[in-house]
């Protein structure tokens, strides 16, 4: 009798454990995009499980209200070395996201090559669609550039700056705004909710612009 009771208790516990596990998996898969800044959510990519074949990484998309880039945690294929891993990250970032996520990278953009220097500079060579299919606009272009900069610098601490190339060539800009002639470091301002500014505090103090204060 006692052994039968024990069997029932064990069975119930196993069933509860399976149900909790199933709920956790379903909940994870159905979870909407995370809204925390990437710098807090994913300091560096981490291998998943024991196989080492997938990592959890932060990918970047435009928030629904268009006010900033938001990070979303996704599994990305694991690769040896910063250069190969960077390619996997860019490839994952180029995949069109499901609604309501908005990508700042034009559809049809392809990755032609990617190189990482010993100094931590990544050179990412895209097909021409990144520029020719770009819809323009300063903020749009900023989001495109810093999606690419952020997905590499946030997930791979070995990469500190990113230069975008088109069809193997250095370019001035994608759509007439952001200077792409040299590697760009991460810019946290585009990954954060904009801070409400009163008129009096919207302008920086005259003698100390933000870039100089650092």
């Amino acid at each position, binding site marked *: 009798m006692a052994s039968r009771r024990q069997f029932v208790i064990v069975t119930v516990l196993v069933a509860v454990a399976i149900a909790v596990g199933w709920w956790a998996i379903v909940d994870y898969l159905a979870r909407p995009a995370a809204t925390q800044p990437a710098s807090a959510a994913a300091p560096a990519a981490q291998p998943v499980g024991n196989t080492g074949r997938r990592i959890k990484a932060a990918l970047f998309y435009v928030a629904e209200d268009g006010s900033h880039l938001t990070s979303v945690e996704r599994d990305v294929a694991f690769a040896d070395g910063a250069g190969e891993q960077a390619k996997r990250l860019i490839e994952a970032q180029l995949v069109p996201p499901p609604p309501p996520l908005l990508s700042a990278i034009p559809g049809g953009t392809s990755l032609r090559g990617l190189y990482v220097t010993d100094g931590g500079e990544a050179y990412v060579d895209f097909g021409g669609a990144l520029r020719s299919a770009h819809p323009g606009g300063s903020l749009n272009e900023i989001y495109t550039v810093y999606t690419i900069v952020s997905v590499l610098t946030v997930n791979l601490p070995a990469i500190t700056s990113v230069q975008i190339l088109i069809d193997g060539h250095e370019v001035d800009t994608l759509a007439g705004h952001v*200077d792409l002639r040299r590697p760009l470091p991460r810019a946290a*301002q585009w990954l954060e909710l904009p801070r409400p500014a009163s008129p009096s505090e919207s302008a920086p103090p005259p003698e100390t612009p933000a870039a100089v204060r650092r």
Partner: protein
Amino acid sequence: MAAGAVLILHAQNLRPAAPYSVVTSEGRTPIAAVVSGDQDLLRLDDLAAVFQLSVREDRTGNALTVSRASSTIVLSLDQGLASIAGRLVSLPSPPVRDGVRWVVPPEFVARALALILDKRVEVRRPSRLIVVGDVRVPRVTVRQEPAGSATRVTFDVSPRANYSVAQDGRRLLVRFDADALDASPATGAGTGLVESITSSEPATVVLQLAAGFGSFRSATVPIDAASSRIVVDLMPSGAPSPPPSPVQLPPVPAPPPSDPSPTFAQPAGPAIRTVVIDPGHGGDEQGARGANGALEKDITLDVSRRLKATIEGRLGIRVILTRDDDRLVPLDERAAIANNNKADVFVSLHANASPSREAKGAEVFYLSLDGYGEEARKMAENPDVKRLPVVGVGSRDIELILWELAQARHLAESGVLAGLVEEELRRRIEMSPRSIQQAPFRVLVGANMPAVLVEMAFISNPDQESQLVSDGFKTRVVQALYDAIVRYRARIESPPGR
């Protein structure tokens, strides 16, 4: 040999073009022109005759030396570069030999010759005018439309100019008190009671009257402090026609409290004498496009022209547009126009876009030095310590240093200007949550003066697209930018603590 081959190739592609005119206080002088591709080229010996220049080809065959009194311009024959007293300026093309004569791009006049003339020089490509010195050359836009049985001809004049209307037989002469007219269209076919429109020198628009013309009446309506509209109604002979409806104009904003009386005197100390306005994009580069078809490049040009007319008319200071028609100007060239004209303020105008249709509001940017390295940051922290090096023709490295670091020295002042622009815009139009930002914008980095980039609204938001094409919105933006420049000028001329 290679350079010679290039020159011969250029010469083979030259086609005759309508001449340009140099307008000075002494009158107009034609300058013969040819065109190569889309590039106008002016005959150098015509320019030499007007400006008392001597032209000499170097023995090496690599350069032309253009001299006036003790000043010299060295023009490279290999690349579009000119050196003036060690200062390097870029040109869209090198000089080209047209038979036995040399021809040069009009930019040679605006960017190189202007530096040794010590006079204001403005090249107006659409009207093919080169305006030299303090001459009055208002822009006049002529439109015709039927008004019942009458015909209405409207002249938008900027800056304002006195005028008279007189009938001379079958012609109606609209004479402006000016040295020349920048008229658009200069000539054309007529409508209704106007058979054709022509112009005559120095500053008269001639309406050739059609059969059936009886009488005319004219009136002036102010558009703003800088511009006016002249309305001429042509009535048919015979039965009197009902009077056409009154002219409808958008409301004219009242001058701001900070607006002083118009003054043309230049203060002795630091001052704003030249403002460069940069209409974003142009030509094949349309910029962003709204869902209903509005193009960023058209909106920026329209607002820039309005802003220029307002500043010139009210403040009496020089305003230069980096483009005054629908053409693509490279980003480097936009900053070069400001630098070569010694501009005191640079304002680049744009319309924004976002993948999210919800994004809205104006944003003001000034340069971020992220990515430009330690050298730029040091220059920003010690703007008075370093002088920018300059060299003569042939050193691209030095030119890169100039462009790369020019804005760094002005970053603090650009931040101040951005703050003033943001405040004035906020009083009149909706602002984005990111109303003031820094970004590594290409067009700003080479500007050697305080510089900002203004995103007026999001063209990707359908509601804001409608605003961007409306007169009311444009007027509010122009007023805000004008007021910001007035406040910035007051700050420059009477800095805090002085």
